[in-house]
Every structure is written in C-alpha cells, then in structure tokens.
C-alpha cells in the first residue's frame, strides 16, 4: 500500500468523487467495457471499445448490442438474453469465452468476451469486457507454422538416417517379385505347366507388390509437407504404427520391444503425424543408445490419469549424464556423429504446442526414460 492513495483534502461529495474515479477507470482501461440494458441497448461504451470496434460512443449509444456481432448471433442475440432472463441458462455469463466480433467496417475479428450480470434495484444490466486477440492469434498461427516447418525439416532428417533401412525394406519385396517372376518363366519354359505353382507365384507377386506400395505410402505420408491438423487420435494406434515404421531398425539391431498399452484410452485431439514424429524420435534414440549393449530392450507404456495420457519410452542403454538432462532438449545439441541435434528440441516443441510436457530421466539401474503427457481435453469431436 502506498501513501499516494490517502483521502484528498478537498471537501467534494464522496459519491461524485467515486463516480469520477470509476469513469477514469473505464476511460483508461485497456479492455473494451460495454454495458447494456436487458433489452440489449448499449448504455455505455468506453474508449477502448471505441478503438476496438471503430464506433464512437455516440454512434452506438442506445443501439442494440447486436450491431457488434456477426450473423447468426446478430439475429439471435435478443433471444439469448430473453432465454437467460427466463431460465437462468447461459453459455457465456460468468465465464469468459472466445467469440467473433464485428467492427464498424464489417471486418470480423477474434475476441475474448466476459459478461457479468449487474443487479440494480429496479432492473438488470449486463457488463461485457472485450479483448481483441487478433494479434495474439496471428502470432500463434505464425508460431504453429514455424513449428510445422521445423517439424517437416526434422522428419526429412530422420528419414535420411533411416534411408538404408528403407532401401532394405523395399528391396525385400522387390527381390521376391523378381524371383517369383523368373521362376514362373522357367516353369513355363520347361513345358511342364504346373498351374497351381504358377497361380501361387502370381498371387505372391501381387502381394509383394502391395507390400512395396504400402512401404512407399507410409513414407510419403510421413515426409509430406502439410498443415498441422488436429483430429481425434488413438495414441496406442500411433505407437503401433511407429513400431511398424521402425521394424527394420528394430530387427536389424536385434532389439526386443516390450509394450504395455493402457486399454480404453480416450481419443485425444492431436496432430497425428507430429505425435508420430515425437515417438519415432524417442524410439530411434533408444535404439541408437543401445548399440553394442548386451541387453537391448525398448519399453513403451501408455497410462491414463484424470487429466493426461502419459507415454513412456525407456531403454536399456547407458543413459545420459545428469549434466545434459536439460541441455539435450536444446536445438543442435547432439551426441551422435550423424545427428542433427533437432529431434528432441522439436519433439518438446510439438508436445508443448499440444499442451503437454516432455521430460527425460535417468533410471537408477541405467538407461534413459522419456515421458510425455498429452492433456485429455474435451475429447474427440468439435473444435
């Protein structure tokens, strides 16, 4: 408490004094403050509201507040108020929410709106506090686009590291196809047409062709440049998909996988490819960390609690010194000879953009544990 707020010496009317002070607050507030009567007509409109909506107070005073809204709220607003006054049911009063506002020129913008009800002796009034969030929205969009760019670059880098595995993976079905086809030709050339054998070979050829195709498609989806899109995802599904993408690395490095997926996980709203990327990164790191170790096990768990789904990826590698447990999330920090040092930093950005957290921990018996959370949110549908 500062002394400056001591009562003034002037003997002015305390009521007048308070009124002036309130007006000063209204006039200097950063947020738009608008009061309306229960019929919707505007009773006051502060300077911040003038700035935000582009109307002067004189222009809107007495007019219906619906003028500040886009359709269909514009038409419906009267009903909203009536309905509230009759039933006490509200979607908006007493809590803030994000809505779209309409400026004088007709331009629409995102704003945060909080409405409170004021009980006067003779009637009810409403106060609305409005904050223009279009700048914040633009910045968020920009940040998301940047993350998208980085995530894409990182996916390309990951893919680069996997390229020999992918070549191997594709050459298997190709080798099978070529051999089956050549075998068919030999069988036909020999004059002894064993039709069952030929039929079997042809069926295997088409199966192997599809196998090669699905490998290509999986990769194409993974490296495609794309806008981030949130949809309802099943995290266990994503885990299985990642193990599938990495099956060659897992097989070739003779890694055992141990999975324990919680059943009945609710769907989460998340960007499927980005979450896949985080998991791919963590599992690939685990595989790399265990090179040359006696025991090579990657363990994957999912867990559900009241607010989050937690995903854990642990390995039986040497772990990391506690001195780098935070450093390793920095961009360009790497201990690998061929790494970009971006994997963990982007993974953390992705998880944080989803409202979760990614942490690393050293196991007492050696080995690293990476955990990330994704908030449950309001489930699958809607936006």
């Amino acid at each position: 408490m500062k002394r400056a707020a001591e009562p003034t010496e002037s003997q002015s009317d305390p009521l007048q004094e308070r009124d002036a002070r309130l007006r000063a607050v209204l006039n200097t507030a950063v947020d738009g403050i608008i009061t309306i009567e229960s019929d919707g007509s505007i009773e006051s409109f502060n300077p911040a509201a003038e700035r935000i909506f582009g109307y002067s107070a004189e222009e809107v005073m007495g007019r219906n507040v619906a003028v500040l809204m886009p359709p269909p709220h514009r038409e419906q607003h009267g009903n909203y108020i009536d309905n509230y006054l009759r039933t006490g049911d509200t979607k908006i009063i007493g809590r803030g929410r994000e809505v779209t506002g309409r400026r004088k020129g007709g331009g629409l913008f995102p704003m945060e709106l909080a409405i409170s009800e004021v009980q006067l002796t003779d009637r009810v009034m409403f106060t609305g506090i409005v904050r223009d969030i279009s700048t914040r929205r633009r910045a968020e969009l920009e940040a998301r686009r940047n993350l998208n760019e980085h995530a894409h670059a990182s996916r390309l880098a990951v893919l680069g590291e996997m390229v020999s595995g992918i070549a191997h993976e594709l050459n298997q079905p190709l080798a099978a196809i070529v051999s089956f086809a050549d075998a068919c030709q030999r069988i036909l050339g020999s004059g002894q047409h064993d039709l069952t054998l030929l039929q079997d070979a042809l069926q295997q050829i088409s199966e192997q062709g599809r196998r090669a195709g699905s490998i290509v498609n999986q990769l194409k989806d993974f490296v495609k440049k794309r806008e981030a899109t949130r949809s309802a995802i099943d995290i266990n599904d994503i885990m299985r998909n990642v193990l599938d993408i990495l099956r060659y690395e897992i097989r070739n490095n003779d890694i055992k996988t141990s999975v324990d997926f919680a059943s009945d996980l609710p769907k989460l709203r998340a960007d499927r490819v980005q979450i896949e990327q985080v998991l791919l990164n963590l599992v690939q790191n685990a595989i790399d960390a265990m090179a040359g170790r006696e025991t090579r096990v990657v363990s994957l768990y999912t867990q559900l609690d009241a607010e989050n789904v937690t995903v854990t990826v642990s390995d039986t590698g040497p772990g990391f010194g506690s001195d780098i447990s935070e450093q390793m999330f920095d961009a360009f920090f790497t201990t690998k000879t061929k790494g970009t040092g971006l994997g963990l930093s982007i993974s953390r950005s992705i998880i944080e953009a989803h409202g979760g957290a990614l942490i690393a921990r050293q196991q007492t018996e050696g080995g690293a544990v990476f955990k990330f959370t994704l908030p449950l949110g309001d489930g699958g549908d809607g936006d």
Partner: protein
Amino acid sequence: MATEPTVHVVDDDVAVRNALGMLLHAAQYPCRQYASASDFLDAYEPGTPGCLVLDLHMPGVDGLGLQELLASREIELPIIFLTGHANVPDAVRAMQGGAVDFMEKPFNSDRLLERVKQALQRDAENRARSRQDAVVHARRKRLTPREAEILDLILQGKASKVIAIELGISERTVELHRSRILRKLGVRNASELMRLLLPQDRSP
C-alpha cells in the same frame, strides 16, 4: 549313402525365402529353407553336400556371423550372400571369408543360379579333395617312424645324398626307404608324391 547336393536358403523374410525356393525348384535344385542362422545350424548335418544362399541382415546371428561360425567349426559350405542394402565393409568381409559372391537384392536370377551352380561345383571339389586327403592320411599312418622322418625330408626337397648325411646312414638305405614310402603311399615317383602331398600341407 550320398545325399543329394542341397541349396540351403537362410533368410528371415518369408516372401524372399519362398521366392528363392520356387526359383531354385524351377531350376531343379533341391532346396531347404531356414528363417534364421540358428534354425540352419540345428538342422544341417555336417558333411552333407550343398551350398548356402545367405541373407546378410538377420536378427540373432547374421550372415557374416554364420560364415564365421561355420569356419570355426570347419564346415566348408560355399556361401552366396544376399543383402537388401549393400555396404563395402560387409562385402569385403564376406569375400575375404571365402564367399562365392555377394549380391544385392533384388538380384539377377540368372546370375544367382549361375553362382549356385559354381558353389555346388566348388563344394564337390572340396569334398573330393578332402576324401583324397583322408586316404592319404590313412596311408601315411602306415609309414614307420623312420620312413615318416625321411618323407618329411623328401618333401623339403632334399636329395637322397643329403638325407643320408643328415641321418648318418648310407645313401643306399635312404633309397630303400624311399621306394617303400612310394609303394605304401601308392605313387610311382617323386613328382606324383609331391602332387599328392603338397596340397594337403599348404596352410589353410
């Protein structure tokens, strides 16, 4: 009882295994398939003729590991390596280990079958040689200690006169031993003797 020479295919990819099986079958080669190196080691009867078509990258013991294992057990099956993704160090190791060939998937079927033919040929030659080695070994065992001593000196290229001086016996006695050695080993002269024994003595 001679077993038919068999092509042993070891690859963890079932489609590739089946395809190779069908190709070899179409080319009239008896063939057996294994999903891993240990499956092969469990099933293979040492001493039976054949060759190996071996995938390089497999979980557990990989192709190069199996090659080393067979060498350490003195199983001399010729090996054709297949790989989904070739790199130079692997290829060098495979060839230094005596592989017939090192082929990248998808391989040329004609070349593969050609290599299989060569591998089986090489195996047959190896077997003929080691059969002969066994015969020679048995015959050498019939030599007396003195004859064996003199044989060693002959193989070192020493003339009878030199041997006589070294052993302090007469040259005539050396000649007598020498003709008995030739008879026991079933050869007519010194050059036949060399041809029979020297390959066996070369280092592996």
